[in-house]
């Protein structure tokens, strides 16, 4: 078969735009990160949105859309004083709670949503909630197991941090110092970037370091190591470099 330039041009358009149309029809054509949480794939809740898929880029409004929990209630649970709770991105929690010794962040929102809606959630990791969130959850029906977990993971309310709708405007020197904190989301790459050599990390892990983009926590969970212990040791190393 021989093609001339015109047929090639036509084929090019058909394949390119046809391919895009096809992928759009299949739901693959996404030019932005989707704000639709993945669903449970098995069990009683199959097909329902899974709180474990809430990402830092989700706003309280996105959470509301996915899980039906009003954004205003979420703001109340996490002590966020804002006029526009819909627009509050969950990743900002970390900044707001930066001074807290126990991490409150996107994972906390996941946990809150799961408990609030009575959805199954993996409780093998340590996730903390502010007192205000726990107060709201106490009004919901929780299993004894969930209740016990909840009561063991409460962060005392900070003197209600006053936040306007643009919370990350000022960065005090303190806030910068706390940025070098080993947290659930911290990747090995970040630890390396903070100046801890790979050999030291491997010594702490007692194992070769995985792909640096893996989070420390995921690695610990996968290897059956205690994240708390590893975290503390890594933090000590990070502080040494400072």
């Amino acid at each position, binding site marked *: 078969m021989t093609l001339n330039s015109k047929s090639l*041009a036509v084929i090019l358009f058909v394949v*390119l735009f046809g391919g895009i149309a096809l992928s759009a029809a299949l739901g693959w054509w996404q030019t932005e990160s989707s704000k639709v949480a993945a669903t449970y794939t098995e069990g009683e809740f199959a097909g329902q949105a899974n709180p474990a898929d809430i990402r830092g880029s989700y706003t309280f409004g996105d959470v509301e859309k996915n899980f039906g929990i009003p954004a205003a209630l979420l703001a109340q649970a996490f002590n966020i004083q804002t006029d526009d709770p819909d627009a509050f991105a969950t990743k900002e929690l970390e900044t707001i709670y930066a001074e807290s010794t126990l991490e409150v962040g996107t994972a906390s929102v996941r946990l809150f949503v799961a408990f609030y809606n009575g959805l199954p959630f993996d409780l093998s990791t340590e996730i903390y909630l502010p007192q205000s969130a726990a107060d709201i959850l106490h009004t919901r029906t929780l299993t004894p197991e969930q209740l016990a977990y909840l009561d063991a993971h409460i962060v005392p309310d900070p003197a209600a941090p006053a936040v306007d709708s643009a919370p990350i405007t000022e960065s005090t020197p303190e806030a910068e110092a706390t940025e070098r904190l080993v947290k659930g989301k911290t990747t090995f790459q970040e630890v390396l970037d903070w100046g801890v050599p790979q050999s030291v990390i491997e010594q702490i892990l007692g194992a070769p370091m995985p792909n640096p*983009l893996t989070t420390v926590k995921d690695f610990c969970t996968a290897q059956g190591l205690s994240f708390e212990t590893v975290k503390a040791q890594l933090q000590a190393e990070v502080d040494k470099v400072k």
Partner: protein
Amino acid sequence: MKFFGKRLFRPHSIWIRKLVQWFFFLLIAFIAVNHTLVESGAGIPFLSSASLHALCPFGGVVTIYQFATVGTFVQKIHESSFVLMIIGFALAFLFGPVFCGWVCPLGTVQEWMAKLGKKLFKRRYNHFVPARLDQVLRYARYLVLAWVVYVTATSGTLIFADYDPYYALFNFWTSEVAVGGLIILGATLVLSLFVERPWCKYACPYGAVLGLTNLFRIFKIKRAASTCKADGACSILCPMNIPVDTQNAVRDHQCISCLECTSEAVCPVAKTVIFTAGAVK
């Protein structure tokens, strides 16, 4: 002009290709402008305002490693890049790097500069670099490719965006553009006055990936030795300086499927250089 079934020697060009190139150049330019407008709250409705990263098939390539190992995309790369990458590969598997010859706006602007260069230097244009040196330099784009894949895999961010002349071309009005990208873009445009498609030949990592399909693509540029007049027109005018007149089928890793060497354009003999999946005599 036909003369006893043969065209007189007169360089034609594939006009429809120029049209397609214009189309994609304008499309991408509009989308890029719209992206900026939307961010400042005044977008043109009904036109995609996607970020250019989301519309780059090469983004799909650089994210493969991270996708396979950690299951996530490199920052700023989205599913759409993956889709475009697959479409790009499918096309290249059939027709070679048609993306380069017909779609890529960076290739297009280099060709526009080439027009100027041809006016200035006539037939000497695109024949300045000594052949030996040129041959070696043409492998440099694989080094660029290896480097890009490596730094993206280890850092998880789109470091190449800071050097990408394509990104600079469509973002020079925003603050997002990196100086490195602008410098490389400027250098590419200036060099284009002497050499056709210098970025494509010596540096483009995506061209390097697509170029590999030249070794096995289904539709190839083939030359019928029985009717070839051996005037060398195809080789002289091939933008990628491929010696079409010495080969029966072009397998050069740099061919961009522009069809300029075919009997539809510069080859003066009908049905002698053709774009085919079949055999020629």
